[in-house]
Each structure stands twice: as structure tokens, then as C-alpha cells.
């Protein structure tokens, strides 16, 4: 296990808070002990009450590995414990305990090459965003198609940034699907991800993907991964990250 990272708890200061959508807010952290990480990895966050009670959760890193500050994009679950704390209590200057980087499977570097098929549902886009940003910063030529499913246009996390990247036509292709609203761009969809949609996304790549990454809620990942398999993608190249419930 010599290569495995040691990731002790450290404190990180919130330096910036940016609302991304009505339900998702980004928190930027300055680490007291900066670490190198790969696109797709996550951190564990731990909150401690005065009586010693602790709650911990995992959050994917949205920023590219090239960025020194760590961005976490957290979706608020109204009846949750940790996500409402971030949305309602945390302010710039607060110190939060976290450890990382964690996870060594759902990761991509430009040296891994492409093409890539990225498939995200809701906040499941977060680790994929780190990959897309890494690709841009490294001026990687790996062709990438990102299929991103959300309910409505206003819930498209990182919307301006993603559309800006799509407009560059440099091998990055954004496929949006809105499950509860009509499409806003001619090439987008308004239904859940299905096999036909995956086939059309694949047609936007010059070659079949070398790797596919699928991330979101368990229900989303199960359905989307099956759609990829039904579209002829080998299960061996599909990596998934499930946010649990």
C-alpha cells in the first residue's frame, strides 16, 4: 500500500461562497495543508458539535487539479443534516475539517487520453466538471461528450461555463437533457437519458469512448449505466460514482 495516499484531517477556511443554482451552492476552501489531487476525487468533510457529536459526508471536488483552492458544490437536501448546514450556517471565514484526496477509481487525467463519455445527473456533474476543467486547462485534445441531466434549465449547475466551453468547438460537446422542461438549445433533449440518446451522444465523438464516467444518485447511475451498456458500451470501461440514496 506504499502508493496509497495518507490523508489526515485538516482545517480548511471557506474563502468564497457562490450560488450556482437555486439548490446548489459552491464553497471554495483554502487548505491549511494543500494536497495534490486528481480530477474526480472527493474529500470527506466532518462537522463537530460542542458535545463532541460528529457528522461526516463525502463531497466531490469540482475544481481542476490545477487549482489550489478546492471547490465543493453542495446540493441542499431540505431534510438533510450536513448540506443544510453549508447552505444556512456556513459563511466566508469559517473553518471546516476535511480530509482528502480520496477515491482512486473515479478519476481521469489528460495522460489517460480519450475519448471520454461523461454522464452526470444533478450534483453528479461535480466530479465530471473537475475532469472537463482539467481538460481545458491542460489544453488536452481528448474528445469529451458530457451528457448532463437535470430537471429544469435553472438547475443546470455550471451552466454558463459549460455552454462557453461547448461554444469553443474544441472537442468538448455538451448534451443537456431537461427532464421536466422543454429543451432550451436545439441540440438538447427533454427526457431521461435513454439508449437512443446515448447513441446520439456517441455519434458526436470521433471514436468510441476509451472510458465512460457516470455519477449521480443511485437510481440515476443504475439507469444511465444500463443505457450505456444497451448502447453497446462495454461494462469494463464504465466507472460509476453513486451518491448513495
Amino acid at each position, binding site marked *: *500500500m506504499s502508493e*496509497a*495516499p*495518507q*490523508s*489526515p484531517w485538516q*482545517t480548511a477556511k471557506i474563502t468564497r461562497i457562490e450560488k450556482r443554482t437555486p439548490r446548489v451552492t459552491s464553497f471554495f476552501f483554502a487548505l491549511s495543508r494543500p494536497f495534490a489531487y486528481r480530477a474526480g476525487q472527493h474529500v*470527506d468533510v*466532518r*462537522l*463537530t*458539535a*460542542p*458535545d463532541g*457529536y*460528529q*457528522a*461526516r*459526508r*463525502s463531497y466531490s471536488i469540482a475544481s481542476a487539479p490545477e487549482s489550489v483552492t478546492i471547490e465543493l458544490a453542495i446540493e441542499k437536501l431540505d431534510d438533510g*443534516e450536513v448540506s443544510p*448546514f453549508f447552505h444556512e*450556517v*456556513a459563511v466566508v471565514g*469559517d*473553518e*471546516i*475539517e476535511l*480530509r482528502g484526496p*480520496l*477515491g*482512486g*477509481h*473515479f478519476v481521469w487525467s489528460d495522460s489517460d487520453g480519450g475519448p471520454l463519455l461523461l454522464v452526470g445527473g444533478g450534483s453528479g456533474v461535480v466530479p465530471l466538471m473537475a475532469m472537463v476543467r482539467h481538460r481545458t486547462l491542460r489544453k488536452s485534445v481528448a474528445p469529451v461528450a458530457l451528457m448532463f441531466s437535470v430537471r429544469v434549465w435553472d438547475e443546470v449547475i455550471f451552466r454558463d461555463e459549460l455552454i462557453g466551453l461547448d461554444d469553443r468547438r474544441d472537442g468538448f460537446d455538451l448534451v443537456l437533457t431537461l427532464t421536466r422542461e422543454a429543451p432550451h438549445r436545439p441540440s438538447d433533449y427533454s427526457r431521461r437519458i435513454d439508449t437512443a440518446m446515448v447513441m446520439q451522444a456517441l455519434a458526436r465523438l470521433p471514436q468510441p469512448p476509451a472510458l465512460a464516467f*457516470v455519477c449521480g444518485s*443511485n437510481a440515476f447511475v*443504475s439507469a444511465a*449505466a*444500463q443505457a*450505456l*451498456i444497451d448502447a453497446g458500451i462495454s*461494462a*469494463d470501461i*464504465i*466507472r*460509476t460514482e*453513486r451518491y*448513495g*440514496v
Partner: protein
Amino acid sequence: MVTRGFSSGRKPPAETDARIPPGQYLEQGFPVLSAGPTPRVRTEDWSFTLKHGPRPIKKWNWAEFNALPLTKMTRDIHCVTAWTKFDTAWQGMLVDDILADAGIEAPTGFLLAHGYDGYTTNVPAKDLTTGKAMVALLYEGKPITPDHGGPARLLVPHLYFWKSAKWLNGLQFTERDEPGFWELRGYHIYGDPWREQRYSGDP
């Protein structure tokens, strides 16, 4: 370090607290985590192989495996993503009964569990024997669904749940403690929730 503004509203009552390992929280649902798509294995295609190194010791098909004694195990389970679930009810074949049917005792101190998806995880032999672990076929009286690792998954409830390999198709005795899939990717080689052995480098 106390987090400004965070209170212990969810602190479990004292009587359950003793059952929740450090850093874990009580979950009512049953979240699903895995590294890839869910394999769908039909029982008519299923088989289970016991190996010592590269050498197969015995192989069972679904009917042969189901002829082994069925044991019930109701246990608390602990996932490294921090949820703990109480009183999960499983039925399956004790690893002890599998070894007995193969006519062997543990020839080495370590095993690798293998899944249909290529997943592997390492567990010491002493953690799989003496009634501690089983190959589970039923959850709450029903066949385990593919999402949760059916038709058959390993159940090692006293270790973090990534050790309870889904879609199990074999156990292999190894000479050394060989890291499996997550253990090669930064997770702890042993994974005791009570000692909070989540990641390599934890005590």
C-alpha cells in the same frame, strides 16, 4: 475542533449510540455503492469456485450451492461512506460450511473474494470463519436484488461493507494478504469500523 454553528440535533439516543462506530450515522434506507455498472447474473449461469492460489479446490453451481446448510445472520452493517444500518437480516451459507463441504480447513491465513464484475477484496481467513461470515443469498427473506449484489454476495458484517463483495463468484486462499480493488486505491487493508480504519494510513 468544534464547527461554528453546528449542533448535535441528530445525535443518536444513548441506547443506540453504543452500536454506532465512530464517525458513522444511522441510516434507515439502504444506499447502494459500487465502482461500476450492476452486473445481472442469472442463477442458471451462476457458479462459485473455491481456490487455493491458482488451483481450484471445488466448484458449485446454483443448485449444488443451495444444497448447503442455510444459516440466518442478523447484523448491523457499516459502510465507509459513513452510514450504519441496524439489524439487517440475511440468509446464506457460512464460509465454515463451504469449507467443510470442500473437505478442507483454511490452508492459508488470507483470502481474496472475487466478484463477477472483476471486483476483489481481501479478508483474513480468521475473519471469514468461526461463524463470522457467509455467502448471502437472501436479504430480508427474499433473493438479494442485483443492486445489492445478488444472486450472491459476501457478508462480513464486522468489517466496513466494501469487504462484503457483491456479485460473488469465488473465494481464493492466498499466501499473503493481497490488497483488493479498493485496498489498492487508498482504502484500508483491514477495515475495522470500530477502529475507524477507513483509508490506508489510518491506525
